[in-house]
């Protein structure tokens, strides 16, 4: 547990390595008391810090989204509440708390109230695993990546529970779409990380960040990056995959019956998930907290800010895909693409093992880039993305009822 240097000044001790330093300080405080007490206290303080990190930064995230989206749309964005509208997130939260919290009487009460919690808790569980600075990770699991992927798939159950229990036709549409889309985008999400894991050799996030000492992973894994970002934008229900809460079709889909702080928790969960995934993209592909001069977590913040701005930029420009196109896009395009990426990376790692090089050679980057471009061109030619022609219904539904027949049936029913 040695901090960064032999005699760390107060800045390095408290700012750069705040978690291990707190553990040591606690130990001295307790005068070499029992280890387990220090450990519990440390877990409490660390947990408190890491849970409050998203809780406090999500309103900032919402503010960034609304400001940047406004700028993209040539307008100003919130500027009334607090300086430059910074307290907008807080104002929204306070408003939501004072708003009445309706529960439709025909709703399934238990599941209805449980859904927001199920949506929020897994998102907060992702934050302890992410390395914020040189040694600042609350829980540096050696299965970090697998843990993150499995935790974040709990939100699908929550979204389906919310949609199903609120007994509203639009919410039902949202719930059905949620199950279909989120599950079919888990596969490319996991597969695209295979490349990263192969190169880094482990799933431990801090080690992954370490292997990117010389070169960020995005250069080595262009396809992996593209597939991962697309899958993440589908997991977060962001344009062009925001089918779950398609304002123009489903009037905000699954959380249409929620109001007050229950709806607020859904929003918090959604933007905290966006924060978590941006952190993940930064650590996995842009070498996390590594960067010259500035301390670790400042670099991480800058990278997360830029990734988040790209998400907002995409949200401000693209229209939405239809349900069947989204599914076809995942199964027919992303999954084969990421499988091929795993193949290519495995071959390269094999070569690296045979040659016995200690680090992944740098000249693999241009090769990967060329392979990426070639694969995408071939795949997109192969997978024609044409509009869907008129789909005649399966015979079970009968042919389309002409006007006259519908009228007779209505008339006969009226008699």
């Amino acid at each position, binding site marked *: 547990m040695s901090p960064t240097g032999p005699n760390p000044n107060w800045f390095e001790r408290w700012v750069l390595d705040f978690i291990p330093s707190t553990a040591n300080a606690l130990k001295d405080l307790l005068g070499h008391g029992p280890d387990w007490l220090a450990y519990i206290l440390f877990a409490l303080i660390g947990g408190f810090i890491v849970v409050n990190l998203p809780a406090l930064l999500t309103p900032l995230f919402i503010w960034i989204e609304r400001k940047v989206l406004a700028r993209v749309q040539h307008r100003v964005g919130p500027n009334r509440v607090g300086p430059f509208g910074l307290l907008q997130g807080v104002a929204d939260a306070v408003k939501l708390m004072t708003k009445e919290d309706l529960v439709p009487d025909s709703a399934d009460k238990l599941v209805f109230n449980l859904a927001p919690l199920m949506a929020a808790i897994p998102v907060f569980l992702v934050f302890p695993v992410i390395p914020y600075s040189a040694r600042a990770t609350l829980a540096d699991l050696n299965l970090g990546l697998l843990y993150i992927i499995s935790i974040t798939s709990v939100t699908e159950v929550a979204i389906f529970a919310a949609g199903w229990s609120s007994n509203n036709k639009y919410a039902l549409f949202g719930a059905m779409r949620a199950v279909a889309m989120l599950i079919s985008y888990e596969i490319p999400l996991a597969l695209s990380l295979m490349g990263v894991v192969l190169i880094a050799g482990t799933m431990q996030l801090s080690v992954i960040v370490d292997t990117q000492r010389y070169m960020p992973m995005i250069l080595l894994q262009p396809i992996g990056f593209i597939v991962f970002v697309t899958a993440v934008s589908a997991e977060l229900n962001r344009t062009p995959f925001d089918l779950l809460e398609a304002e123009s079709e489903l009037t905000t889909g699954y959380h249409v019956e929620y109001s007050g702080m229950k709806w607020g928790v859904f929003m918090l969960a959604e933007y905290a998930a966006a924060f978590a995934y941006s952190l993940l993209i930064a650590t996995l592909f842009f070498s996390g907290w590594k960067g010259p001069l500035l301390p670790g977590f400042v670099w991480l913040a800058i990278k997360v800010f830029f990734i988040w701005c790209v998400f907002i930029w995409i949200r401000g420009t693209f229209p939405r895909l239809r349900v069947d196109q989204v599914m076809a896009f995942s199964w027919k395009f992303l999954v084969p693409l990421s499988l091929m990426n795993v193949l290519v990376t495995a071959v390269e790692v094999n070569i690296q093992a045979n040659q016995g090089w200690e680090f992944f050679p740098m000249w693999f980057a241009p090769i990967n880039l060329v392979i990426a471009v070639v694969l995408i061109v071939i795949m997109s030619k192969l997978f024609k993305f044409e509009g869907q022609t008129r789909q005649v219904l399966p015979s079970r539904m009968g042919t389309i009822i002409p*006007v*006259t027949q*519908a*009228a*007779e049936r*209505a008339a006969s029913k009226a008699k």
Partner: protein
Amino acid sequence: MTRELGFQDVAAAIERALPGAVVQSSANLVLVDSDKMAAVAKFLREAPGMEFDFLTSVSAVDYLDYFEVVYHLLSIKNNESTVIKTRAYSRDYPAVPSVVNVWQGADFQEREIFDLMGVIFTGHPNLKRIMLWEGFEGHPLRKDYIVVTPS
């Protein structure tokens, strides 16, 4: 320029094809017998010289002792237009055959006339109120519909 087909020769053409269909025709009126309207409509649509394939609008006017249903027809091919009128004389059951089978565009317009004016279009597949709610009694656009204006 959309040429207004002469009313006299339209009436003559209809008379030749369907004797007895034209009740009265003058310089600016072609009045068709109401129960032959469906046949006249089909004739106007298919006849070589006519080909009125576009029904611009169907309107109804309440002249107190009869309802007059006015069809504005248009032939996009040779850019000609004409106006055909029929009359329904009874007050409580004014019936005019529907032309939905000839021009699909008349569907909503005839429903609206039935809803607001009370003219019944026999043969219309889905004749029910379109503007007002089902429980509304009376037909507001009739001249004898008493409108109670708030004071």
